[in-house]
């Protein structure tokens, strides 16, 4: 199963992955509208976060774990593990905003939606061959590959 792996050795902290993420998850798929309109009006937020401390930067998001803590913690069934695709899927309709998953995720990969009482989480760009963040990264700071079980 292919997963997104961050590489802190070459991540330059440009945040272009976040820009691509927001665009990919926008209605318009237009970078300018996504950032200047949808972000302000609908609280569109990146599902990937770049952490930085001096020269060390790394782009973090959901690991789509083998045995996801968030799925175990979710009280409403909004989070499920798809054994076929390996994706840890999220159904916004079902989310009740209890933040159990937020506390359960050991990687801090789940965030609160800026406006709604819902969460924001990486979906590995369902529907795309390569996730938008991986495609946009200028330095191979993110790679999408199958490394077997991890």
């Amino acid at each position, binding site marked *: 199963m292919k997963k997104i792996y961050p590489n802190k050795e070459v*991540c*330059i902290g440009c945040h272009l992955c976040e820009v691509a993420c927001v665009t990919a998850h926008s209605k318009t798929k237009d970078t*300018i509208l996504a*950032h200047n309109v949808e972000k302000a009006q609908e609280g569109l937020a990146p599902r990937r976060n770049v952490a930085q401390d001096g020269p060390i*930067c790394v782009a973090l998001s959901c690991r789509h774990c083998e045995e996801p803590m968030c799925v175990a913690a979710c009280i409403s069934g909004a989070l499920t593990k798809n054994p076929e695709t390996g994706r840890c899927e999220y159904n916004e309709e079902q989310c009740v905003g209890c933040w159990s998953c937020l506390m359960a995720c050991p990687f801090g990969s789940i965030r609160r939606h800026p406006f709604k009482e819902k969460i924001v989480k990486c979906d590995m760009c369902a529907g795309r061959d390569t996730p938008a963040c991986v495609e946009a990264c200028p330095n191979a700071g993110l790679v999408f590959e199958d490394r077997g079980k991890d």
Partner: protein
Amino acid sequence: MAFAPINKNYHDFFVVRDKEACINCQVCVRQCSYGVHYWDEARQCVRHDNTKCIGCHRCEALCPTQALLIQEKPSTFKPNALWRPVFIKNIYKQADSGGVLLAGMGSPVDIPVYWDKMLLDASQVTNPSIDPLREPMELRTFLGAKPNALQFEQTDQGPKVKTEMKPNIKLNTPIMFSAMSFGSINFNLHVAMARAATELGTFYNTGEGGLHHSLYQYGANTIVQVASGRFGVHRDYLNAGGAIEIKIGQGAKPGIGGHLPGEKINAKVSETRMVPLGSDAISPAPHHDIYSIEDLHQLIFALKEASAYRVPVSVKIAAVHNVAAIASGIVRAGADIVTIDGVRGGTGAAPAMIRDNVGIPIELALASVDQRLRDEGIRNQASIVAAGGTRCSADVVKAIALGADAVYIATAALLSVGCTLCARCYTGKCPWGIATNDPYLAKRQNPDIAAKKMVNLVRAWSHEIEEMLGGMGLNSIESLRGNRDKLRAVGLNSVELDTLGVKAAGR
């Protein structure tokens, strides 16, 4: 920003930001190592300070909405053919600082480029051209001394070459990566160059910064340099490479030593160069043990002795007046390769006046060295490597036709990994992560990507060289070497034609 000191307002570049397109993502803020872009808290948007922009184009290249344009500032001084803006601005700067003007990369000054005044021959009906896609093309090149004549002997297994061959290095393409020291460029790029040279079957040169132990595995494709500072030079280093190069001079700054500022000496550089952490590494202008050709002879043979006569020794000089006589002396002193670096060679840092006013074009130097060595009957005793401002594969072909065995590229290799020739290498803030050891900036060069780009560049040029050879009806680079009949010049006077040994077009 308002209220900049008077002379700061005569800056060279300014930023045009398309406000409609800017999404305030701050990518530009993070990419600019000169602090031009910033987040304006009061206005809640990204803004910039034009006075600080040095024109590296990093922000422009990475802006996800193409909202940025970096332009030369259009304000002009009153036109004056003598007092061009560069001279005026330099005087303002020096009146403020009282210091030597520093610059990086090669000279941008308008010195004639003879490559552009020479054209290649092409086969027509009398001799046919060759299709390099169908016929084998030979770019293999051997650098080192060749024997005057070959002697053979009969053995039970048949005839064998009796003549003892001097050590040579084998290149799959006549292009090598020129000396760029670890320190002046960072470790990521040294790894990338080493890997690229190995993959291409050619050589890279350590420059005067020594060789980090982790790169000894690429030794078979490494030329180890011995410069006046002797940084990182020890027995294992001399034996790690496939060739040794003594650096006497450098095209970008003939007669000037090297200076790597203390800020660039991090733990790895300090270990490799064998200099204390954070202290300046100064290589003096002269080698303090070379004051004559006899002294050079001693050093060449000391290095050959230290490396058990297994590898060729090269001597690199800058192209200067009387270069042919100097090269003849170098060959007679025992060098197996003479490297000549022309006036457009690059550097991490040089006084701008030296960079722009000292030296001669490589084309003239190369032609006169090759001719002199031929006239003296010693051309076979050494190979000639030309360096300094090779911009494309046609330059390589012309260099070989003028007498070079191979060329070194450096600026072109840096361009392949993003360099925009902003010429601020000496600041240590290279926004492209090349001429910097700042760990945050150096990360911008992913060694895997950089190696791939360098390999691609040399592969592309090699294909083009094959095409040009085929067009001339030649199937090996050997047949082109010193074959000046394959060149014709346009717009040159008779002295220049004579120096180049090239006929005028139409002749």
